């Protein structure tokens, strides 16, 4: 017999080893999430997928599903928390949506819109983050980085290149390029890499295709993310997670 846990009062079946988020998505139930990607090891850093499990808050992407677990997700309290997290991400970077070519395809934007975020609310940081346009095929606009590590994980787990990494701690944490010069042009990143297609925001941009699809006809212009996220699920993780080159990065 398949074991189940309760999600907002309804039974959700799970396979051994699945997280609460994986099981929910597999069962066609949406839990808002941002840094989770079905093809990579869960990261648990953005906390947007936070749920209340047996009365305690936990990131559902890293919380193992257990029989009898009572999970609350679609509640005012959880969505208030998620809204605040998304607001902080907006305030921390330079997210000028009107001039961003990722607008309409951006997961952060789509989450904000779906959760009803009307303002970042907090004092904007307006950080100084110069772009890296050194590579002939890609532009790196660090202004929009939300430190989700999707590119880091994709480059290490799938591409086996480890082109990207996070460096620093706390407020100074930032995305870096693993090259002596720090420039993307001095890496072996390629158009076919997984890492260049997973950025949920507008950091890693392919050159010369920016507005091929006009604003208004893009992915989240059509339907909100809560209605689309299930299209990508279920897809179990296939990544090995082992990458020797990752050792020593922080």
């Amino acid at each position, binding site marked *: 017999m398949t074991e189940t846990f309760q999600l907002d009062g309804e039974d959700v079946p799970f396979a051994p080893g699945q997280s609460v988020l994986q099981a929910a998505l597999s069962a066609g139930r949406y839990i808002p999430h941002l840094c989770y990607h079905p093809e990579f090891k869960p990261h648990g850093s953005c906390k947007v997928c936070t749920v209340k499990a047996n009365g305690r808050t936990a990131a559902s992407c890293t919380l193992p599903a257990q029989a009898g677990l009572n999970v609350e997700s679609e509640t005012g309290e959880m969505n208030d928390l998620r809204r605040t997290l998304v607001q902080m991400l907006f305030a921390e970077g330079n997210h000028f949506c009107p001039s961003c070519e990722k607008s309409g395809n951006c997961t952060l934007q789509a989450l904000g819109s779906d959760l009803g975020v009307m303002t970042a609310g907090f*004092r904007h940081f307006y950080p100084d983050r110069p772009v890296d346009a050194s590579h002939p095929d890609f532009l790196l606009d660090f202004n929009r980085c939300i430190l989700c590590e999707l590119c880091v994980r994709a480059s290490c787990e799938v591409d086996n290149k480890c082109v990207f990494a996070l460096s620093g701690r706390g407020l100074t944490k930032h995305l870096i390029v693993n090259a002596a010069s720090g420039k993307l042009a001095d890496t072996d990143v390629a158009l076919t890499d997984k890492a260049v297609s997973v950025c949920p925001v507008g950091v890693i941009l392919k050159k010369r295709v920016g507005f091929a699809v006009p604003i208004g006809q893009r992915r989240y212009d059509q339907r909100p993310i809560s209605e689309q996220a299930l299209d990508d699920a279920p897809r179990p993780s296939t990544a090995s997670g082992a990458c020797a080159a990752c050792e020593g990065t922080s």
Partner: protein
Amino acid sequence: MSKKLKVATTSLAGCFGCHMSLLDIDERLFDLLELIEFDRSPLTDIKHCGPCDVGLVEGGLCNAENVHVLREFRKNCKILVAVGACAVTGGLPAQRNHLSLADCLQEVYVTEISLEHGGIPNDPELPLPLDKVHPLHEVVKVDYFLPGCPPSADTIWKFLTDLLAGRTPSLGPELIRYD
């Protein structure tokens, strides 16, 4: 409704795009004008804001006059609304925030060759620029935010009709846009 609600509008560090979007509600303007009358607004050319029910403020704060006008609005309006990306986030003008103001002025008025004899403007009539561009909520309390560049006519219409009917404005994801 026995008495029309008074609405004031202004554009601070904005481009008047949000005002254009307000006008873009088209024939619904006639319905709107049954419910409201405009006080200070570029549409009436009234220069100062009297006591109002709703203040719609477009644009962020990039100079001292913007702050002065915003405070006049806050003082006089029962409900103050930040309309559009610039009012909500600082928007495009705030993209100068990671640069030094002196460097910006130097580049635009002195270094840039197309303005050969310009020099940095220094007329006492000109309001002084702020060191950084700020969204409205960093200076006064803002009651509602309407993101978008500009918020669409449908967004503005839904917001205003909810507000005028006494409901808490409620916008679905299709009306909450940041671009």
